[in-house]
């Protein structure tokens, strides 16, 4: 009985993950992709649990959802700022120069 239900659980989990992964790779909106990636990390941790690897699941939950997610979100903000043509704080070429006359970034 338990085996049957767990198999059903696996099938739904795998189908949801495939669906998620398809949209994640297919979407044009980067922010949407990041949120889908965070959700995918959470489901991947569940999948590792079902594969009887709780230690990998712990690492996946901590790294995939907890660390890469915020990292991507921060990177997204920085990317937007660069795209808008503002001076990037981390580029050494512009430091000390007037941002308007300095070399333009593309």
């Amino acid at each position, binding site marked *: 009985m338990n085996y049957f*239900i767990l198999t059903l659980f696996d099938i739904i989990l795998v189908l949801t993950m495939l669906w998620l992964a398809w949209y994640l790779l297919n979407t044009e909106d980067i*922010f949407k992709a990041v949120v889908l990636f965070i959700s995918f990390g959470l489901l991947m941790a*569940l999948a590792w649990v079902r594969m009887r690897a709780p230690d990998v699941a712990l690492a996946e939950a901590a790294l995939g959802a*907890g660390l890469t*997610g915020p990292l991507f979100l921060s990177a997204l903000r920085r990317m937007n700022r660069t795209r808008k043509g503002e001076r990037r704080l981390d580029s050494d070429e512009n430091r000390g120069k007037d941002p308007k006359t300095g070399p333009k970034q593309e």
Partner: protein
Amino acid sequence: MSWMHTVFALILLPAIATGMFRILKGPTAADRMMTAQLFGTCGVAILLLLGTGMGTPVLLDIALVFALLAALATMTFVRRTWQYSSKRNHGNPIQ
């Protein structure tokens, strides 16, 4: 091992799958992020139930990590991504 808990976990799984629609549709960025939070809470519940259903109490620790880190993503989103995005230009993809 008890199959009842596995059934409960199985019932909660569609709740996660349905939340996907809000990520795909959500008009604002915050709606999408809220769904990630829903995934976190539902994931905690599923892990707790599976831990009893599969007979592996280690899953409690994973649920603990879930509970802590799902909030971290939301807070990074509010502080770093969302705050600065729409005041200065409106053609931004994040709104």
